[in-house]
C-alpha cells in the first residue's frame, strides 16, 4: 500500500526533474558562447562604481566642499531625475551610490535582458533550439539555462561591486547594499526577459518588449524622484527600489525584498507561460498579411523601411517623452544650485558652462546623443543580422546592387538618428521654452544643441559600418564601441579619466551648446571622419564575400 502510494509520487518527481534534463549542458553551452561578452560586462559594470568612488576624495577633499555639494546637488530635481534621490553626499560611498546606483542597475538589467533572450528566444528564432530540443533536453531546460546564466552574470556583477567598493575602503554594509541592489535588479529583469521571450516569436521582439518595460520603469523612477508630489511613482519601479535601498545612507534592507519578490514573480510567470505555447511560436502570433505587395514595395529602400519603421517609431516615441521630461525640468537646475562654487565647477565639468541651466541642457543633449548612438548601432548591425539570416542573398541575386542595398539600410542610422535628435531637441526646447517664457529663444537654441551632436552620432554609424564591411564577423562589436564612448563621456569626468581617454569619445568634441560658443571645426572633422569610415565600410562590403 505504501509502495503504491509512493510510486506515482516518485514518478511525478522524476517527471519534474525531467523537464530540466540537460540544463547543465545548456548552461555550459551558453557560458561557452558568452565567454567573452559575459566577463566583459561583469567587469565593466562591476568596476565602474569603485572608479568613481576613488576620485571623490580628489574632487571634494574638504568637508565644506562636501556640504556645498549636498546643498547644491542633493535637492536638484533635474539631477534626481537622472540619477535618483541623493541620500548622503557627504561620504564617498553615498556619492557613489547616488551617482552610479541607478545606472549600474540599468546596465545590469540591460545585460540580463540580452543574455536571457540570446539563449532562449533567439535560439528558437534561428531554429537552433529545435536541434537541441530533440535531444534529451527538458521543456524548461533552455529557459532555465538562460535565466541561470543571466542571473550568474548579475550576481557576479553585484559581488564585484561589493568587493571593489569595500576594497577601496568603503563601508562594507553600503558596499553590500549597492551590490545586492544591482544584482537583484538584474534578477528582476531576467524575469521580465523570461516573460518577454514567451510573448514574442522573434528575438528582436522579445528584446524590444523587455527594453520597453525597462525604459518605462526607469522613466517612472525618474519622474517619481524629480516631482515631489509624485514620489510614489518611483516605488512602482525596480530602479526606484534599487535606489531606495539607500546604500551608504542608513541602508534599508527590507527594500531588497521587493526586488526579490519581483524577480520571483516575473520568473514564475515566465515559467507558467512557457508550456502555453508551442516551441518556435510566441503567445502573440503573426497575423496574416496581404496576399499581394502594395504598389510601393518595389525597391530595396521600401523593404528597408518596412524592416526599420517599427523600431524607429518606438525610439522616436521614447525620445519625445524623455525630451519633454528634461525640458520641463531644466529650468529648475539654476534655482537650486545657487552659487555654490564647487558644485558649479563640478557641473561645469560635465556641461562646460557656468550657466547651470544651459549646462544642464547641454549635458542632456549629450546624453540624448549617446542614447541615439545605441539606436544607430542597432540599425546598422541589422545589416549583419539580415546577412547571417540569409535574407540578403536572394535580394542581391536580383538587380539590387550591394551599394544600393547597404545605402537603403544606412538611411536609418544616418537620418533616423537625426530624426531622434530633432524630436528630442524639439520636445526639450518646446517645454523648456514654454516654462521660461522664451520659446522663440530657447527652442532654436536647444534644438540646435541637439542637432550639433549629430556628427558624433554619425561617427558611431561610420564605425559600425566599417566593422560590418571589413570585419563582418565582428560586426556586433559596434555595441562595444558605442558602450565605450558612452562610459567615457558619462563617467570619465567623474572617474578623473585622463584627457587622452576622454578624447577617444567623439561626444567629447562636440561644442557644449547652448552655453558654449559654437565652433564648426569639430563638427566638420567629425563629419569627415564619419564619412571616411562609411566609405571604408562600403568599399569593404563591395569587395567581400556575402554570408
Amino acid at each position: 500500500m505504501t509502495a503504491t502510494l509512493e510510486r506515482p509520487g516518485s514518478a511525478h518527481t522524476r517527471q519534474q526533474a525531467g523537464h530540466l534534463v540537460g540544463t547543465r549542458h545548456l548552461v555550459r553551452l551558453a557560458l561557452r558562447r558568452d565567454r567573452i561578452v559575459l566577463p566583459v560586462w561583469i567587469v565593466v559594470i562591476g568596476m565602474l562604481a569603485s572608479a568613481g568612488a576613488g576620485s571623490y576624495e580628489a574632487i571634494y577633499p574638504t568637508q565644506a566642499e562636501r556640504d556645498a555639494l549636498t546643498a547644491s546637488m542633493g535637492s536638484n530635481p533635474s539631477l534626481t531625475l537622472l540619477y535618483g534621490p541623493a541620500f548622503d553626499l557627504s561620504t564617498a560611498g553615498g556619492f557613489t551610490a547616488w551617482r552610479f546606483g541607478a545606472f549600474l542597475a540599468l546596465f545590469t538589467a540591460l545585460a540580463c535582458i540580452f543574455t536571457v533572450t540570446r539563449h532562449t528566444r533567439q535560439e528558437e528564432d534561428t531554429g537552433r533550439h529545435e536541434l537541441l530540443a530533440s535531444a534529451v533536453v527538458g521543456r524548461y531546460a533552455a529557459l532555465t539555462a538562460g535565466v541561470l546564466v543571466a542571473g550568474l552574470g548579475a550576481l557576479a556583477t553585484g559581488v564585484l561591486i561589493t568587493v571593489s567598493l569595500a576594497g577601496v575602503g568603503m563601508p562594507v554594509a553600503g558596499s553590500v547594499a549597492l551590490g545586492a541592489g544591482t544584482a537583484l535588479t538584474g534578477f528582476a529583469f531576467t524575469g521580465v526577459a523570461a516573460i518577454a521571450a514567451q510573448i514574442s516569436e522573434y528575438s528582436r521582439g522579445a528584446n524590444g518588449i523587455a527594453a520597453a518595460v525597462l525604459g518605462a520603469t526607469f522613466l517612472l523612477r525618474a519622474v517619481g524622484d524629480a516631482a515631489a508630489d509624485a514620489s510614489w511613482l518611483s516605488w512602482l519601479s525596480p530602479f526606484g527600489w534599487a535606489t531606495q535601498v539607500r546604500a551608504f545612507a542608513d541602508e534599508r534592507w527590507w527594500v531588497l525584498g521587493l526586488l526579490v519578490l519581483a524577480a520571483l514573480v516575473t520568473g514564475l510567470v515566465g515559467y507558467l507561460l512557457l508550456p502555453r505555447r508551442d516551441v518556435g511560436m510566441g503567445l502573440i502570433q503573426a497575423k496574416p498579411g496581404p496576399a499581394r505587395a502594395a504598389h510601393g514595395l518595389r525597391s530595396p529602400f521600401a523593404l528597408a523601411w518596412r524592416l526599420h519603421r517599427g523600431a524607429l517609431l518606438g525610439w522616436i516615441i521614447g525620445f519625445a517623452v524623455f525630451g519633454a521630461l528634461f525640458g520641463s525640468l531644466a529650468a529648475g537646475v539654476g534655482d537650486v544650485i545657487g552659487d555654490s562654487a564647487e558644485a558649479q565647477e563640478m557641473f561645469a565639468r560635465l556641461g562646460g558652462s557656468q550657466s547651470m541651466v544651459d549646462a544642464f541642457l547641454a549635458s542632456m543633449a549629450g546624453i540624448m546623443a549617446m542614447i541615439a548612438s545605441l539606436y544607430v548601432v542597432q540599425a546598422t548591425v541589422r545589416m549583419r543580422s539580415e546577412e547571417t539570416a540569409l535574407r540578403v542573398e536572394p535580394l542581391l541575386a536580383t538587380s539590387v546592387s550591394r551599394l544600393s542595398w547597404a545605402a537603403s539600410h544606412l538611411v536609418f542610422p544616418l537620418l533616423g538618428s537625426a530624426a531622434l535628435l530633432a524630436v528630442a531637441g524639439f520636445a526639450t526646447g518646446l517645454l523648456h521654452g514654454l516654462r521660461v517664457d522664451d520659446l522663440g529663444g530657447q527652442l532654436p537654441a536647444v534644438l540646435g544643441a541637439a542637432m550639433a551632436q549629430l556628427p558624433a552620432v554619425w561617427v558611431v554609424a561610420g564605425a559600425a559600418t566599417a566593422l560590418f564591411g571589413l570585419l563582418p564577423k565582428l560586426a556586433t562589436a559596434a555595441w562595444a564601441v558605442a558602450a565605450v564612448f558612452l562610459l567615457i563621456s558619462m563617467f570619465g569626468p567623474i572617474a578623473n579619466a585622463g584627457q587622452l581617454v576622454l578624447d577617444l569619445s567623439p561626444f567629447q568634441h562636440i561644442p557644449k551648446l547652448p552655453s558654449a560658443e559654437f565652433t564648426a571645426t569639430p563638427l566638420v572633422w567629425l563629419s569627415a571622419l564619419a564619412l571616411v569610415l562609411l566609405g571604408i565600410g562600403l568599399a569593404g562590403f563591395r569587395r567581400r564575400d556575402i554570408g
Partner: protein
Amino acid sequence: MKNAIDVNDLRKSFGSTKALDGLDLTVAAGEVHGFLGPNGAGKSTTIRVLLGLLRADGGRVNLLGGDPWRDAASLHRRLAYVPGDVNLWPNLSGGEVIDLLGRLRGGIDQRRRDELVERFDLDPKKKGRTYSKGNRQKVAIVAALASDVELLIMDEPTSGLDPLMEATFQQTVQEVREQGRTVLLSSHILAEVEALCDRVSIIRNGRTVETGTLADLRHLTRTSISAELAGHPNGLTSLEHVHDLKVDGNKVRFDVETDSLDEALRMLTSIGVRNLTSQPPTLEELFLRHYTETEIGSAS
C-alpha cells in the same frame, strides 16, 4: 551566345579550407543542367560565385556573357535564383515577398504568379515563420518561376517539398524548358535530375568529376544481373568487368560493367538461362559508385 554558364578551373578557399579546387561547369543555353554532389561538395559555393555573392580566388567565370562579380546587378535582371535555405522576413507575407523579388528582378508576370500560387497550393497571406520549410521554398520557387528571365539557378529547390509538390515542380520546370529557358538545378534528388535534366555535372571536393548527358554517364555504371541457370556458372569469374559475384548452386548474382554486358550474357546463355532479371543503372548507383570509389581511391 552558346553557353549560359561557362566556368573554368574555378577556385575558392575559405581560410584554409578549399571549397572549390578547379571546378569546371558548362551549361548550354536552353538546357536543364543537373548539378550533383554530396553535401559540402561545393555546389552552393559555385552557385554563390555565379551570383557574384562570393569572389572567386581563381579561374574564369562567365555568366550570360558577363562577369558575375563585376556585372552582378545587370546580369541579375536576366536570372532568378532559388536558395537552398529560404528565410523570409518576419513581417512580410509570402505574397509580398513574391511580388517584391519579382519587381526587383525587373518584372513579374501577374497571371503566371497567380497560377503558380494556385498550383503550388501556397497561402500567400502567411508571414515569416508561420510557413514551413517547404512553404518558404515554394515562395522562392513561385517568385523565380513567375519572373520573366532567361536563366533559373536553383539550389536544391525541392528539399522540403512533399512528393505531390515535387511533381508540380517537375511539371513547371518542363514548361520552363519548353519555353527555351536555361536551368541550373543543383540537387540531391536523383529521380528529379533523371526526369528533368538534359545534362549532368557531378562534383566532389570542389572538382568536377564527371559531366555529360545521362546516356554518356551510363557507361560508368554497371548492370545488376541475377539469374537462375541450367548448370553451374563456371567461367564467370574469368570475365574482366564482373563485380560482386555471388554463386548459390545454380543461382547467380553479379554486377557487370556496361562494356562487358554482352560478353557476360553470352556466357550465361551458353550455360542455359531459366530465369533472369536485370536492373538498369540508376543515377543513385552512378552517384554512390562515384563517391565510394573515389573515396577508396583517395584513401589508398
